[in-house]
């Protein structure tokens, strides 16, 4: 017997949701052993990972809080990928955005909130654009692969953050963490008393805007055409390089906005840990979300859910905190692998004895 993937003619509507459930079951089976090995009941652990965070108002706000940065980076990556610009540099652009917001917040300390916050966000977005400009220009002008250039600028951004924190921005207490930004730079909470800040509203508006532009506007259609088939787009009179450049810069701006938002909304100061790989997670979020704004929102919330659940599980069940990452990573892998079946179906068939490949015997009856 051999297993082969056969192209599907048409994808049934029920398929994608069913496949996601299958993926969850697979992950459950794969991780049940390790979880038991770590001394916990797998079923209880799963409840902690996925369901518990959604049961209380306080923990739901934590989920949202955890989702905000990856919402920004996920949207940033989705916009770039849609146009066929493989921006792997959301991490660096996010950090650049954090630096941008900190510059404003440290040197214009006394601005009032209504001015300070938009200004800092703008500075963050601008910094993200600056950080994405060089790879974008290299790609558009000279055809230099942006995967390499954007990726390589990520550690550069981190080194810049570290350099600033160990140099001019070293905190007054001597640690490599900047001083607090001015009081006007504190992003207010959406619900008074919770930690969820207005960044979530910005991200939501952004997601809706991206959805509308992508699906309803000429710009979105051009961008998708460029991403799907640059040759055909060019033939149709679309300025391919200009479109690529714009989507690259918009992507950088969104990632930078996310970095600025994180500084204003969570830390109120710049630290090396301002991004815990949010830019890279954004790639996963965008890809799993099928590069659509709605998909990005769903995946970002799911990842936020598991992140919060993992903290909970490690507290209550004494599971190692890494187990949460194992579960979420496996879930990603499983979903990606299983979703292949949207386009292919599996067929089992007999192999002819003498042919080396998977080819069946033409003489064999069906």
């Amino acid at each position, binding site marked *: 017997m051999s297993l082969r993937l056969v192209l599907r003619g048409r994808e049934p509507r029920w398929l994608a949701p069913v496949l996601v459930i299958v993926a969850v079951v697979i992950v459950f089976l794969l991780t049940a052993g390790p979880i038991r090995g770590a001394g916990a009941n797998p079923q209880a652990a799963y409840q902690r990972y996925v369901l518990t965070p959604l049961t209380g108002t306080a923990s739901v706000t934590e989920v949202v809080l955890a989702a905000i940065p990856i919402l920004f980076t996920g949207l940033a990556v989705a916009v770039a990928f849609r146009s066929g610009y493989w921006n792997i540099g959301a991490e660096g652009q996010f950090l650049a955005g954090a630096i941008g917001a900190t510059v404003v917040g440290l040197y214009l300390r006394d601005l009032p909130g209504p001015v300070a916050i938009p200004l800092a966000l703008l500075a963050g977005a601008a910094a993200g654009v600056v950080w994405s400009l060089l790879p974008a220009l290299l790609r558009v002008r000279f055809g230099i692969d942006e995967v390499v250039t954007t990726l390589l600028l990520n550690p550069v951004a981190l080194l810049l953050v570290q350099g600033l924190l160990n140099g001019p921005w070293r905190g007054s207490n001597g640690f490599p963490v900047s001083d607090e930004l001015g009081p006007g730079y504190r992003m207010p909470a959406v619900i008074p008393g919770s930690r969820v800040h207005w960044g979530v509203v910005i991200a939501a508006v952004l997601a809706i805007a991206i959805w509308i532009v992508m699906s309803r*506007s*000429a710009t979105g*259609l051009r961008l998708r055409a460029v991403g799907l*088939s640059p040759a055909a787009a*060019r*033939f149709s*009179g679309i300025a391919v390089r200009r479109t690529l450049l714009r989507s690259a810069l918009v992507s950088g701006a969104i990632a930078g906005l996310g970095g600025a938002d994180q500084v204003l909304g969570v830390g109120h100061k710049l630290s090396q840990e301002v991004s815990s790989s949010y830019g890279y997670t954004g790639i996963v979020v965008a890809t799993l979300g099928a590069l659509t704004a709605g998909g990005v929102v769903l995946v970002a919330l799911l990842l936020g859910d598991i992140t919060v659940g993992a903290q909970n599980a490690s507290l209550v069940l004494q599971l190692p905190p890494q187990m949460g990452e194992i579960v979420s990573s496996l879930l990603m892998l499983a979903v990606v692998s299983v979703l292949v079946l949207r386009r292919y179906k599996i067929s089992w068939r007999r192999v002819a004895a003498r042919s*080396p490949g998977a080819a069946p015997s*033409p*003489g064999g009856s069906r």
Partner: protein
Amino acid sequence: MSEPPAPGSSAPSAVSNGGTGSAPVPLVRLRGIEKSFGDLRVSDGVDLDLMPGEVHALLGENGAGKTTLMRILYGLTSPDGGTIEIDGAPAAIGSPADAIAAVIGMVTQHFSLVGRMTVTENLLLSRAGLGRLDRRAGRAMVADAADRLGVRVDPDATVEKLSVGEQQRVEILKALARDCRVLILDEPTAVLVPQDVEVLFDSIRRLTGQGMGVLFISHKLGEVSRISHRVSVLRRGRIIDTVPTAGASPAQLAEMMVGRPTVGVRRADRAAPQDAGPLAAVTDADAEQAAGLVDQRAAGQPSVAAQPGAVTGAAGPGRAGAVLSIRGLRLGGRGKDVLAGIDLTVQAGEIVGLAGVSGNGQTELVQVLCGLERPTSGTVAVNGVDVTGADPERVIAAGLGRITEDRHACVVGKLSVAQNLVLEDLPRFRRGLLLDRKAIRAHAERLIEQFSIKAKPDDPIGTLSGGNMQKVLLARTLARDPVALVASQPTRGLDVGATEFVHTELLARRAAGAGVLLVSEDLEELLALADRIVVIYEGALVGEMPADEADPERLGLLMAGQIGAAA
């Protein structure tokens, strides 16, 4: 070459041991071959026999399943069901190696030759084991195979320096050197000039005379009538019928092929009067006008708009003068110019045919005209507007319609038919900041009806058949009512129905006063549609003649570079 091809004549005299009822064991016997790709059945219980000494033609529209069937026989595709017998014994063919062992050889349109190697080396490649190569034996092998084929081949010639026809001969030699007794030729004449076709046909007759069986795949009726003993017509994966060629008229075969009576679309009175029947259903008013024009001409009745002989100057209503002028167009390539100073003017209301063997600069010329490539020097003007080196947006705006040979490079496969239809014209479909989706849908529905496209507006265009995709491209281009039209290989790979449709549309544009530059490797198409034919060879125009005075022989010589522009 010596034998004058008599059109419509009976098939070549049947070889002694083939063709008749009391035939010996067939060389190849396919029974109930089935193959599906996803939901698409490409082979639906196909039965096929090939006798020794027989040329068995496999005739069918594009997508009928001819190539898949041959790929199954050659072990490149595995069937879902059915049996293959060679010499009466069941054979399991799971790979080309199995096929070669079972004495089957195949020559496809895309040769598998190593260009930098000599003919001998290419032949040795396929049978080289470990150890030293015996070149002398290799040369003997080439000579031996060439002798069987009845052609002269220099065993030490480098393959890339040979002409396409010669390269094809080397491919056949390769198959012969492996002692094949069954030869599959997949659209062998598609790449050949007329003279090479004659050589090929002579060779085929020679091989069948030696008892070989040849499976000849084609969708060209004329060739099939001339070379084959029997014809199997394939439609939608099924064999409609297998008939002796001698008793079948081209019209009958064509009807079997497409499942309905067809006629050719002709510019002028070349077809017999009875051939001018109802054309494909076209609702477009322009097309009807053209159809009327064709009917009148076909019936041999003089009409004001279409006096034979006055075609070149006969401008349609509304427009006049040069709509596309190309002056001294050059495009540098590696070493030598790909386009070496082209001067060409297309008048309003005429179709200029550009003939040539592929690879002589047609592709590049079209690329330059479409705004995809910048010429090194020279100018291009559309309707008096200079568009030299302009990007596609400006070229389209100047009024040039474009149909290129590579359909897939012109559509975004994953976008819908409706979206592809408006891609060149987005500003027109804006309402405020967003796209007017209703208008886009209405536009698509209108064009789908007008061009009889078998698709829904929301279907991804990549799922359409070649013919329907081409209709979408035509619709997109013609919807803007272009002043000039560049159409490169507009019917390549299309079935008879779609080809006819495209031809009708081109004639309709001509009647409406547009100028058309028709680039084609299909001489019949050029002779049928064009008012004037120019020939391109190695990047230069080497001949020009009114289509009425053109004959395939002379065009073939021009295309092959045998006679220069002065002749």
